[in-house]
């Protein structure tokens, strides 16, 4: 990629986003984030900061209580938005991989094509040849094509996550949402998985939003960082700006302690 980007274009624009769950839990409070086209953005924060909720608002697995999200200038939080069309543009990668365990690796990747195909064809668990080609290509991108016909639950954690990345890629998405993709993996495998995600972002120009709670990985992989704490954005910048003061703001604002800490 040697074409020099001029001013970065905005891929996602999150404005005044709030989410209060039934029962009163305030997961997000007036979140504003701009995400650039093709960047690898890490959302850093402790468990319970609202990172997962934020991601699920983007593909509307969770309906926000207030605020709006724009994707390439179009409001995707509008009630008129077709959910299938929306979701196929957002590939998702999960902490627990969430592969369909009892079917083959290839079938798992093919499920990334479901949004493009009719339910009638799916009834026979059959996919067109073109989809199979796409699926195998996506598997090859994460070097998993040699396990295409193995059952998903026979793979190791790292392999499962690579297949999950291939599944997200098979959607030919504009954005990949990775929700704590390496939280259940050991450090070596975790770096491998993050490398694949970053490589995909760079080579295919896919915007990647990656939730992490580990500072180390964030410093290594993030192009830009958004720090979240208790449902609000408390930092936005590049990883070199993650000073001790910033990390303290992200991690140690316990509920109720905020005022006292601010005074310290």
């Amino acid at each position, binding site marked *: 990629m040697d074409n020099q980007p001029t001013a970065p274009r905005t891929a996602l624009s999150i404005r005044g986003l709030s989410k209060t769950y039934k029962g009163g839990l305030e997961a997000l409070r007036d979140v504003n984030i701009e995400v650039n086209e093709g960047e690898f953005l890490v959302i850093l924060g402790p468990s319970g900061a609202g990172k997962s909720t934020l991601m699920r608002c983007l593909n509307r697995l969770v309906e926000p209580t207030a605020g709006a999200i724009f994707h390439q200038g179009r409001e995707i939080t509008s009630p008129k938005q077709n959910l299938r069309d929306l979701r196929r543009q957002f590939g998702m990668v999960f902490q627990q991989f*969430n592969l*369909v365990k009892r079917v083959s690796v290839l079938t798992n990747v093919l499920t990334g094509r479901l949004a493009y195909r009719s339910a009638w064809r799916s009834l026979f668990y059959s996919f067109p040849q073109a989809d199979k080609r796409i699926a195998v290509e996506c598997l090859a991108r994460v070097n998993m094509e040699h396990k295409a016909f193995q059952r998903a639950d026979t793979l190791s954690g790292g392999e499962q996550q690579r297949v999950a990345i291939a599944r997200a890629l098979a959607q030919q998405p504009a954005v990949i949402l990775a929700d704590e993709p390496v939280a259940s993996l050991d450090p070596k495998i975790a770096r491998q998985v993050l490398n694949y995600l970053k490589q995909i972002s760079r080579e295919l120009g896919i915007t990647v939003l990656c939730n992490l709670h580990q500072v180390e990985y964030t410093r290594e992989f993030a192009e830009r960082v958004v720090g979240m704490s208790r449902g609000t954005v408390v930092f936005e910048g590049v990883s070199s700006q993650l000073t001790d003061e910033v990390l303290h703001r992200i991690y140690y604002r316990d509920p109720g302690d905020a005022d006292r800490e601010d005074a310290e």
Partner: protein
Amino acid sequence: MTAPAFDSVVAGALREEAGIRNRRVLKACGWTAFAAGVLYFTATQIGMKPAALVAGLPFMWDFLTRLLPPDLTYFQYLVGATIETVQIAIWGTLLAVLFSVPLALLGARNTTPHILVFHATRMFLNALRSINELVFALIFVSAVGLGPFAGVLAIALHATGMLAKFCAEEAEGVEKGQVEAMQATGASKLQVILFGVIPQVIPAFISYTIYRFDVSIRSATVLGLVGAGGLGFSLIKTMKLFKYHETATCILVIFLLVLVSDWICAKLRARVL
């Protein structure tokens, strides 16, 4: 905490424990007495008299001597009925599988198109389950006539109720992550069910179907009593003709059939799970 204060905290907790224990013992005594009263009352109501059993022993002995030994030459006439019994079970179970898949999906909270459909389906399934195969067989014998087809329908309906309810509960217990992953791809509701729910339910469903087949064999051996084909018909026929040695052969064949089916089904289920 000072030593006397500490001692009093410990003593207080122990006193509390003793109180809880006493209350529990009292409660257990009360319930035991209540249950004993209910059981005694029901026993008198339904005429459970051990003396009657003792007095009846000579008659039972008389019946047994008339049954035994089984007339082994009658075996050859039971081959057809035995095969018919298995055939009734096969088709009854197969039809139940076909009916129960859609019914299970309509009757599971997470796959039903509407909560009212869910309640209606569960109600229907409960009705199917509460009616015994023999009752269904009586109805179908009058509808489609004497013979094994009535037995097939009877087993199919009852087994549908059982299988579909089991399958619906399995569908409700699936791992949510796989379902969410399918939703996130933009799959339609039906596609989410096909790829996110069904693969998770299949092993338990197959295993339960095999178990149900085993149960259907047992049911099919008695459906003949009301004229719905199979070994039961031979059983009732020989009894009505007072050919008790042949009746004994029927009982023996039923016993062997159930034994073999139980064994095979256990093996099959072990392979699926």
